[in-house]
């Protein structure tokens, strides 16, 4: 383990340098909403780093895709953005920080609850509550203390429309969400997330359990979401990254290898490892 550590530590500065230069173009197009600075993260109290000094900036109202082989840390990084890793007792940020809208989200005074209202998350496996469709979408508002039926009704309709689900479910809002198809359930989860009007939506392989048709619908939805939200999506599917994202980051073994506009990264990668991965030679 320690040997590997030493090895993997070496190329770190190089990778960071390159990102700074290659993401330059992206940086000026739009203001950076999410700023990750030399972030290291460990699942085991700091013994081994799962993420190794990641630095990247995620622009506002764009779709940013994280790609990379399994276990490369892309989901871990995503879960750092809304502090979902807090639920794991031995997980630690060992170095660096994450700033969202200029605020250090790991600062001592940060309330993770308030953070998560701004940084929503859609999970790999659709996880609607075993409640009605209406109650699923209204959940976030209800726990925030909203009681007025008119406000809830409006928010539910708006969110379901925003998640391109309204027409399919408007006549059966009172029915159980578990009666929906897999794709509909995932869109319901997206509706539930946008109902609390977050700034950022994190998506952890949202289509991996869906068939191609449902995937196409969700992908179309994701490209539409960028009008109102900043989307960060983790995906195993490189075609998906090219279809939905504006920027793409490639991770390998806990390091950020390359970060660029999606077009640039897929047509003209500047690093050999990236080229190998996207052309299917490894991973």
């Amino acid at each position, binding site marked *: 383990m320690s040997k590997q550590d030493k090895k993997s530590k070496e190329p770190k500065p190089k990778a960071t340098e390159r990102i700074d230069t290659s993401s330059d173009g992206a940086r000026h197009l739009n203001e950076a909403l999410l700023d990750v600075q030399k972030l290291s993260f460990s699942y085991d109290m700091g013994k081994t780093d799962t993420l190794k000094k990641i630095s990247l900036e995620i622009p506002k109202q764009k779709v940013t895709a994280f790609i990379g082989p399994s276990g490369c840390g892309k989901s871990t990084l995503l879960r750092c953005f*809304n502090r*979902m890793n807090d*639920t794991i*007792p*031995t997980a630690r940020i060992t170095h660096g920080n994450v700033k969202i809208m200029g605020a250090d989200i790991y600062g001592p005074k940060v309330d993770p*609850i*308030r953070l*998560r*209202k701004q940084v*929503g*998350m859609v*999970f790999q*496996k659709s*996880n*609607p*509550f*075993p409640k009605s469709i209406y109650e699923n979408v209204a*959940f*976030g508002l209800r*726990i*925030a203390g909203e009681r007025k039926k008119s406000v809830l009704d409006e928010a539910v309709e708006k969110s379901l429309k925003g998640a391109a689900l309204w027409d399919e479910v408007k006549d059966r809002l009172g029915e159980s969400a*578990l009666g929906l198809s897999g794709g509909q359930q995932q869109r319901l*989860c997206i509706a*539930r*997330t946008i109902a*609390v009007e977050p700034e950022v939506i994190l998506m952890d392989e949202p289509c991996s359990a869906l068939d191609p048709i449902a995937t196409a619908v969700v992908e179309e939805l994701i490209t539409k979401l960028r009008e109102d939200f900043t989307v960060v999506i983790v995906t195993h599917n490189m075609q998906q990254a090219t279809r939905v994202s504006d920027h793409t980051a490639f991770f390998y073994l806990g390091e950020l290898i390359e970060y660029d506009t999606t077009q640039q990264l897929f047509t003209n990668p500047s690093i050999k490892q990236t080229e190998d991965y996207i052309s299917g030679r490894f991973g």
Partner: protein
Amino acid sequence: MSQIFDKQSKGIDSEQLVTWLLRIATYLIILAFVLIIGRIIVRGAPVLAKEGISFITQSPDILYCFYDQDGKYHRLGSQEYRDFKTANPDGLKLYELSANYSGGGIFGPLMGTLILIGICIVFAMTIGIAASVFLSEYSKRGPLIRMIRLAIINLAGVPSVVFGLFGFAFFCYFIPVITKTTPVERSIFFTQLPDWMASLLGAEQLYLSCQGWGSSILAAGCTLACMVLPIIITACEESLRAVPQGFRDASLSLGATQWQTIGKSVLPYALPGMLTASVLGLLRVSGETAPIMYTGAFAQCQLPWEGLREENWFWRITEFFQRGCEALPYHIYSVSAKIPQTEIVRPMQDGSVLVFMLIMLALATTSVVLRIRIRKKLKW
């Protein structure tokens, strides 16, 4: 014809022998079941048929059995016996037998058991659910939590008689209690009451005294609660773990606090499983005799709420909880081991056991059916 695949040995081979041994072991279980349940039913059913509903609605009574001078057989309760004697002062009674608690019915013990179960549920469920939520949702892995889990496992293995003695020492003789009478020793605190409270409670002073609750239903119920606690905590934790992690993640990611997450997205889905599993545990301990015989159950004909002496409502309630009562398992123990055994005691023994078994069976079935029905409604 070639015989290369034929059996080599003649007669019974070892394979068949093993199959038969295993089969016999399995059939022995059925035999045990039939012997126990069948015997109870065969012997208890005629008693219930003969006594009818009065077996459940009457309290235990002294039973007198005798032949009068005309050769007529009498089975009388204590009141009837007195009436008979006043009606026939010179009546000659032949072959007279009497037995305590063997007449009447089992209404008192039945109510006592239900009250004990009630007290046990209140204490065991509150503490059990709270502890399981903490262990499963809040606690982090560490030496303390490991020790707590070890304690829970060990607590489940403690013999029931040890729980009884613990309850006797702790609940009956040590635990602090509020009294109005001046306790001689062990009084740790007392307060002069303001006038309005004094008139409300009918007492000038209140004492907090480490004198225990005495042999009482409260002590017995709490002892049973201690006994069922490990079962309930384990069952509740399992139910909590069965709730998909996705519900917690989704709830947290929508900005819910951990308590909101537990209250709205975890507990509602775990509760049916928690309740049914706990009921099954409660049934097991409510059939225990050892823990309650030291702490609150004693043979008596009175109903738990009969003969309360206190006038004031507050002290009446405390008196009720600080009195012992008869419970069904202890009643069965009394009539089968504590009183002289004669043939007139047997109907009471058989009937009590059958009723007890039927009640347990009914409650267990209800809880299982309930769980299946709720599971169907709450699927994910």
